[in-house]
């Protein structure tokens, strides 16, 4: 059997975080009774005229700049025609000829995945299928919500690269605040275009498009499964049919939805009801200058500035909420490494226990900073600090000091001084700490010696030894 190479391109639909829809003033808020967030414009009633939401353009441009695209100064909207009950106008306002952003890239493990374009368009309504009758029920609340579609070139060669590309794009977009990027809720939707070819070939094989992929993990699974399916077809001498397939994550397999034979000619033409855009160089330069620091920049800065590992950095910069918590906590308590350790350890573990995603984090940086300070000053021990954190995250406590007092978590007199000494010695002689943790027990004596010296007889050496042993064990 020859070796095959998988060739993947992505189409990523992202719902923009505007308050109102892209061409009318209806709210984009999630939920609401069916068809209560709709009007003649988004319902496509005769005579209704679209009016472009400026914020949606701002967000789309911001996304384009962050993903290294050129901005099309004279972008135009086009009508894309097809008939489907969730599309009341029988056309979708989109962009074909002059999309807003073109020729960008995202870096994935040292390699550039090119982004062909990012265009603006409107979302469709939602259909529910009643299994007992022959009707589909249509809710137009989502119809007309602003979307961008990010289209990559077929530069991806593995499941890992596909997942990584989406993670990187998602991290950038959520840092920009242009979308909440929730895959489960459908505000970030990924379609995977995949073909296989013999290794070394330059030609593209016939591709299949997979839809309904709802998590980062299922992107990887879908790529792996579809690659295997196509190779098997080829090995059996069967043709690959150009088709759209629906991914079923519970089965770990996809099934054909429709083939290209009944593919439509969308009869695109420029949308006559919307004026073209005309964006000046200055206008674009202002937006570029106003971009926040992006994950890629933070990825380079954290290890240098804070001494964080590449792994910790990657986790922190991939989630906007964690990243903000880290930066603000570090600034407040002046202990970036402790801040990172607490977030990577206790905070993530607590979120996992509670089954909550990072963006639902309820932990003010002031509280975390205070907890870190109290522990490093030896006011509370590790266990007390942990209890305070849990109390704040569960909403049981708001004020850290109040909680510490009320629950008598502060170590009294000697104890507190001893803990402070332990902390101090471990910080000033990190080499011995590392040596001890690497198995060199002799290093313990060195640390204990320094601690005794700092103690100057004011306290219980036995208890000091216990505290040092405990702290070293916590790594």
């Amino acid at each position, binding site marked *: 059997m020859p070796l095959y190479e998988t060739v993947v391109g992505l189409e990523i639909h992202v719902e923009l975080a505007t308050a109102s829809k892209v061409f009318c003033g209806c709210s984009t808020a999630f939920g609401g009774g069916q068809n209560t967030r709709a009007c*003649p414009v988004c319902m496509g009633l005769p005579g209704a005229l679209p009016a*472009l939401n400026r914020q949606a353009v701002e967000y789309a441009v911001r996304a384009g700049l962050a993903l290294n695209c050129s901005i099309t100064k004279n972008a135009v909207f086009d009508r894309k025609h097809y008939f489907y009950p969730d599309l009341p106008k029988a056309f979708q306002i989109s962009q074909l*000829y002059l999309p807003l952003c073109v020729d960008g890239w995202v870096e994935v493990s040292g390699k550039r995945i090119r982004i062909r374009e990012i265009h603006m368009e409107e979302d469709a309504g939602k259909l529910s299928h009643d299994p007992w009758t022959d009707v589909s029920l*249509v809710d137009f609340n989502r119809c007309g919500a602003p979307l961008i579609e990010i289209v990559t070139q077929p530069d991806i060669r593995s499941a890992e690269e596909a997942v990584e590309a989406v993670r990187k794009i998602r991290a950038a977009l959520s840092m920009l605040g242009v979308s909440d990027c929730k895959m489960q809720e459908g505000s970030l939707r990924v379609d995977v275009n995949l073909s296989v070819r013999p290794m070394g070939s330059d030609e593209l094989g016939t591709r299949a498009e997979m839809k309904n992929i709802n998590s980062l993990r299922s992107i990887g699974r879908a790529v792996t499964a579809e690659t295997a399916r196509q190779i098997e077809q080829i090995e059996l001498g069967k043709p690959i049919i150009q088709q759209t397939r629906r991914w079923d994550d519970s089965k770990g397999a996809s099934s054909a939805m429709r083939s290209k034979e009944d593919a439509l000619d969308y009869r695109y033409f*420029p949308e006559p009801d919307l*004026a073209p855009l*005309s964006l000046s160089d200055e206008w674009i330069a202002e937006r570029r200058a106003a971009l926040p620091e992006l994950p890629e920049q933070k990825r380079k800065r954290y290890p240098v500035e804070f001494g964080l590992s590449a792994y910790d950095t990657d986790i922190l910069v991939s989630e906007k909420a964690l990243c903000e918590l880290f930066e603000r906590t570090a600034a407040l308590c002046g202990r970036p490494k402790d801040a990172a350790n607490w977030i990577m350890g206790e905070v993530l573990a607590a979120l996992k226990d509670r089954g909550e995603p990072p963006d639902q984090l309820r932990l003010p940086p002031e509280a975390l900073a205070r907890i870190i300070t109290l522990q490093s000053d030896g006011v509370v021990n590790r266990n007390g600090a942990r209890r305070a954190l849990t109390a704040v995250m569960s909403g049981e406590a708001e004020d850290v000091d109040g909680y510490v007092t009320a629950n008598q978590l502060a170590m009294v007199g000697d104890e507190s001084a001893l803990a402070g000494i332990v902390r101090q010695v471990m910080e000033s002689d990190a080499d011995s700490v590392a040596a001890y943790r690497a198995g060199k027990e002799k290093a313990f004596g060195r640390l204990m010696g320094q601690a005794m010296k700092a103690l100057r007889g004011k306290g219980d050496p036995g208890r000091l030894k216990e505290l040092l042993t405990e702290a070293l064990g916590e790594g």
Partner: protein
Amino acid sequence: MKLTDDITLRVAKLSGIRLTEPETAAMTRDLGAIVGYFDILNELDTAGVEPRAHILPLVNRWREDVVTPSSDRDELIANAPARRDGYVAAPKTFEGGGSS
């Protein structure tokens, strides 16, 4: 471009319109005249004319991102051919058959 019945039928299919044979012939004639007019336009010398996407000299006609009240639901969907529980009821479609 010569417009044929085949092209008319294809456009009709894409537009969701059913045509009888006499209607097809009439449509081919009418559409042919329109397409023929574009052939005349194509003879014009447009060398010095800037390409444009819109007939009016307007750009950046946008509004601020402000939520305005949506319509009264019952009134909004009153003209739909069928309704149920505040939804518009449509002939059943197979799952995931849309576009985009």
